[in-house]
């Protein structure tokens, strides 16, 4: 195909680089510098999509990111697929594959258009009023149908091959928008030496200058661009959309790095999300032209007048050969003049105003362009492209008077409903807006952060004004090019143009993408939706992917008209981030997989991995759960490990336990306040188990703390609880008891910790230790400095298995070598390495609790049968008063008990509920739940721990555990210790 609508010269495209691409499978050519939209328009193709609800044929109405209609699915076939991409911002590259959306079987012949025929049945919010009968059909018929009809493009189904990056930046001044105002601001600030970041969503600097630049401005643009590029402290980012303006001048900007190249080198990230903390922000975001709301305003070929100028000036593309201009202001005359100068034949200018005056009008008249003043377009015709428009005169009362005899032939309608300062970011940054009657638009009013608006964003619609405001905002002191703006006359808003066409067919669209018509807004108001937020939600106007950039003010004004209220009284619409849709990938950046959340590994992790460990996640830690031998499942491995620990000995990596080094003259007093038991007399060399409560009296954490010296302690915590325990201790020390001199240091990762446990433990360990570790020298609950396998460390004689146990701590870097020495030495004594699962079984055999498994944040020490650890003598400790609350002393609290199933081979599931009766009725009263449950080879049967209401008084009673299959298992309540009940082994 030839580029029938491309001018022979002009534009900012690179004609030396032809680019081939496909659209819906057809091959086209364009030039480097084109967008997909401009390249298709160069071929005379306007039809690029179908609307959401009625499947109306649509072409682009805009040339930038505000485009609602021309949404495209890009797909390179290798996982790079992007639904809902605006054709107007897709930069062309060789091999680009674009598909239209929301049509079947093809864009030209879309059967979905039947919705348009039945559109009287689909008024705004029709779905709230129907699909309720028969009831079951909502789920089975109606909703699936609605869902299939909704949506636009298709979500990716393959992994994203691209990667994304983040950049954190700080600057004195962030300038958003590189039009005349933004450039002047950046230049002024840049020359003063401040750190400046200038971002613009386009691929080139210039903004409106790219359309309007004459000689001197063009030269200025070139000079400024090169000067800014040469300033080290100025960062200029093109193809970068300032997406969001958050609090405390924190903003995000999305830089597109490879999207426009089609090249995939595997090195460059696809996009980079900048997170910018700015001292000050200048918003020079320009203005966005409004559509006019008239019957048939959505036909392909109908577009914004400014868009036609952009296609002409930047891409040398004529959007039509017989344009008809429809406007309520002067700016569209520029489009008429430019199109005329480019050789098209202007069908007419239809101006709502009865007596427009000024230089632009004179110029149009001078060019011989026919101007219908006091007139409006009341309808358009054409199937996939407008080919004529009907004109009527409109009176001062807003009513149509006479219709122009015959529709005017045209192949495009260039409309202008005035301009909205692009205040989206200002509003996102909490700035307050006010309605400006002269512009008939919202303009910035009061800033709530360090931000200024300049140029059209501030409602200043001249280039000279933009330059000077920008320079001022940037700190002033620069020379500006002399610009003489043509003075424009006032606009005359007509928010909803009446139509003389009857019936429901002629539709005047407000929100193009979501197919919201002026009539829909009327229905919303009629039904009592008086807030603009209600109208938006009821009709979905402004909720599409363009977020109503061209339509929101129209909607607001039409609703205000219906309510006979002033526009500001109806409310301003809320601008929500992001400014344009932003990829999840870019937001996440490199925070994927292992970098999503760091993995913590112990010093012996490598050994465990090499020896076949199966790991589990505990907090951020990877812990070896069990060490299966070939052919062994978890059950087999755990049974073997459990038996062996109690028969010979076992070795476990306990490095993940939280370890806090506590020092200071008041360290002991501090411990005495945070633990429930007594700490004043614990001698150096000794260890003690402690339970920590929260102020509410519930168990918070537990662990053994050793007294290193009178003013020095080594505290251990649970693995998952370590960070919150440390934070809690710091909080108390700094804010509650600042008078106590005590210091905390996390040493979790400084020590490698290995527990060797079992009857042979001492025999295995002793030869490796330089010191005497006999029971006399190192009794249960004592610790000593020791040299293990040549490494200086500490040995704690503490046990979580009920066997003789030594917890060897050595500096982390030596962990694996000491571990290997113990393993080597252990071979003669049948030492087995075991994991957390075996540790869980062994401690359950002894009735030792695990905080977080037996407890769930609502258990007291008394519930756990641990009355012995709560000092009755201490005047205070954290949790003491909390325990006194009535419900914490109630008789029917859940209490920790043991459960034995009648069938010794039956292992209950953890989480199963306990009932008093075996007759199941729903709802069934539950009196407790199983917290821990294992097959215990050492006991020769299954064992379980449970929290049961009033359980301490139920010893020996039969209770019941209903199963998910409806059966019921009988259990007997027992004590919580199942093995070595007298506790002799631990001291051996």
């Amino acid at each position, binding site marked *: 195909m030839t580029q029938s609508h491309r001018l022979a010269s002009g534009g900012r495209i690179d004609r030396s680089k032809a680019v081939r691409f496909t659209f819906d499978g057809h091959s086209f050519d364009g030039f480097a510098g084109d967008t997909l939209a401009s390249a298709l328009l160069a071929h005379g193709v306007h039809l690029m999509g179908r609307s959401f609800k009625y499947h109306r044929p649509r072409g682009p109405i805009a040339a930038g990111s505000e485009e609602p209609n021309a949404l495209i699915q890009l797909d390179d076939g290798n996982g790079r697929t992007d639904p809902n991409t605006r054709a107007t911002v897709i930069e062309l590259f060789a091999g680009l594959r674009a598909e239209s959306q929301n049509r079947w079987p093809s864009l030209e012949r879309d059967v979905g258009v039947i919705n348009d025929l039945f559109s009287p049945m689909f008024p705004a919010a029709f779905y709230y009023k129907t699909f309720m009968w028969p009831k079951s059909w909502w789920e089975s018929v109606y909703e699936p149908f609605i869902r299939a009809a909704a949506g636009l493009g298709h979500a990716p189904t393959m992994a994203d091959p691209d990667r994304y990056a983040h950049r954190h930046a700080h600057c004195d001044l962030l300038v958003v928008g590189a039009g005349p105002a933004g450039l002047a601001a950046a230049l002024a600030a840049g020359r003063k030496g401040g750190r400046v970041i200038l971002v613009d969503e386009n691929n080139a600097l210039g903004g409106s200058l790219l359309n309007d630049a004459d000689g001197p401005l063009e030269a200025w643009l070139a000079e400024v661009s090169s000067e800014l590029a040469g300033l080290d402290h100025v960062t200029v980012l093109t193809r970068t959309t300032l997406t969001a303006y*958050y*609090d*405390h*001048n*924190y903003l995000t900007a999305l830089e597109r790095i490879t999207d426009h190249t089609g090249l995939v080198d595997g090195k460059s990230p696809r996009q980079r999300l900048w997170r910018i*903390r700015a001292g000050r922000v200048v918003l020079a975001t320009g203005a966005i032209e409004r559509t006019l709301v008239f019957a048939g305003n959505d036909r392909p070929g109908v577009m914004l007048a400014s868009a036609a100028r952009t296609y002409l000036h930047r891409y040398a593309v004529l959007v039509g050969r017989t344009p008809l201009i429809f406007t309520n202001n002067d700016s569209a005359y520029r489009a008429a003049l430019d199109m005329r100068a480019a050789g098209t034949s202007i069908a007419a200018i239809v101006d709502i105003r009865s007596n427009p005056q000024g230089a632009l009008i004179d110029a149009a008249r001078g060019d011989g362009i026919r101007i219908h003043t006091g007139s409006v377009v009341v309808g358009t015709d054409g199937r996939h492209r407008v080919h004529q428009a009907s004109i009527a005169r409109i009176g001062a009362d807003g009513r149509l008077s006479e219709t122009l005899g015959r529709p005017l032939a045209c192949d495009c309608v260039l409309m202008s409903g005035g301009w909205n300062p692009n205040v989206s970011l200002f509003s996102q940054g*909490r700035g307050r807006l006010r309605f400006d009657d002269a512009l008939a638009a919202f303009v910035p009013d009061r800033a*709530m952060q360090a931000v200024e608006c300049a140029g059209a964003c501030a409602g200043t619609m001249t280039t000279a004004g933009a330059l000077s405001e920008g320079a001022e905002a940037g700190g002033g002191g620069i020379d500006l090019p002399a610009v003489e703006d043509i003075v424009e006359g006032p606009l005359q808003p007509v928010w909803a143009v009446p139509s003389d066409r009857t019936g429901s067919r002629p539709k005047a669209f407000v929100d193009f993408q979501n197919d919201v018509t002026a009539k829909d807004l009327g229905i919303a108001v009629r039904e009592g939706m008086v807030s603009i937020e209600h109208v938006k939600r009821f009709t979905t106007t402004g909720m599409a992917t363009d977020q109503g950039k061209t339509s929101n003010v129209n909607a607001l004004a039409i609703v205000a008209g219906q309510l006979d209220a002033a526009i500001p009284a109806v409310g301003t619409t809320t601008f929500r981030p992001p400014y344009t849709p932003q990829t999840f990938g870019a937001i996440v950046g490199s925070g994927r997989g292992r970098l999503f959340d760091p993995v913590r590994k112990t010093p012996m992790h490598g050994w465990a991995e090499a020896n076949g460990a199966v790991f589990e996640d505990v907090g951020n830690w990877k812990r070896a759960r069990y060490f299966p031998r070939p052919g062994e499942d978890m059950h087999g491995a755990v049974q073997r490990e459990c038996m062996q620990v109690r028969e010979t000995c076992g070795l476990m990596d306990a490095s993940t336990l939280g370890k806090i080094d506590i020092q200071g003259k008041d360290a002991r007093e501090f411990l005495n306040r945070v633990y429930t038991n007594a700490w004043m007399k614990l001698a150096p060399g000794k260890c003690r188990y402690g339970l920590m409560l929260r*102020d*509410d009296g519930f168990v918070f954490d537990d662990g053994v703390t050793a007294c290193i010296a009178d003013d020095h302690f080594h505290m251990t915590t649970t693995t998952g609880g370590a960070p919150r325990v440390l*934070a809690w201790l*710091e*909080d108390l020390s*700094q*804010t*509650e008891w*600042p008078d106590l001199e005590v210091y905390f240091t996390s040493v979790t990762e400084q020590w490698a910790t290995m527990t060797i446990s079992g009857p042979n433990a001492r025999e295995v360990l002793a030869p490796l230790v330089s010191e005497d570790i006999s029971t006399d020298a190192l009794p249960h609950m004592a610790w000593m400095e020791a040299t293990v396998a040549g490494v200086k460390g500490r040995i704690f004689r503490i046990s979580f298995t009920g066997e003789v146990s030594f917890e060897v701590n050595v500096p982390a870097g030596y962990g694996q070598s000491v571990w290997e020495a113990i393993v080597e030495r252990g071979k003669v004594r049948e030492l087995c390495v075991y994991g957390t699962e075996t540790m869980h079984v062994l401690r359950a055999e002894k009735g030792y609790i695990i905080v977080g498994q037996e407890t769930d944040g609502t258990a007291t020490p008394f519930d756990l049968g641990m009355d012995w650890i709560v000092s009755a003598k201490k*005047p*205070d400790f954290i949790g*003491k*008063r*909390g325990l*006194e*609350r*009535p419900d914490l002393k109630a008789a029917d609290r859940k209490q920790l008990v043991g459960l034995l199933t009648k069938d010794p081979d039956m292992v209950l599931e953890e989480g199963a509920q306990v009932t008093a009766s075996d007759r199941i009725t729903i709802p069934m009263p539950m009196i407790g739940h199983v917290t821990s449950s294992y097959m215990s080879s050492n006991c020769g049967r299954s064992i379980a721990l449970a929290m049961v209401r009033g359980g301490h008084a139920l010893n020996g009673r039969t209770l019941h555990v209903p199963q998910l299959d409806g059966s019921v298992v009988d259990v007997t309540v027992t004590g919580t210790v199942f093995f070595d009940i007298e506790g002799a082994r631990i001291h051996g």
Partner: protein
Amino acid sequence: MLLIECPFCGPRAETEFHCGGQAHIVRPSNDVDDTAWESYLFIRNNPKGIHAERWVHNHGCGRWFNALRDTVSDRFLAIYAMGEKPPAIDGLEDGNDKR
């Protein structure tokens, strides 16, 4: 994301901090009644306006400090040390917004 002026380190991103909730809560003695204890544990000022609260620079110096923040604008009005009384701000008494 807020920018918080750590009195020890200077301005830092909010992600380096943890908010510890309402400031100036006095831990009562053990002999208070259940209502007073409930109040200590659970009842908080939740003003729509200026709020005195505690922050800790936990991914920095690890130090706690107090701040006055407007819960409508989320602007910080003052940063002051633990143990200090809130500075005088128009419309503010004892850390409670009376405006």
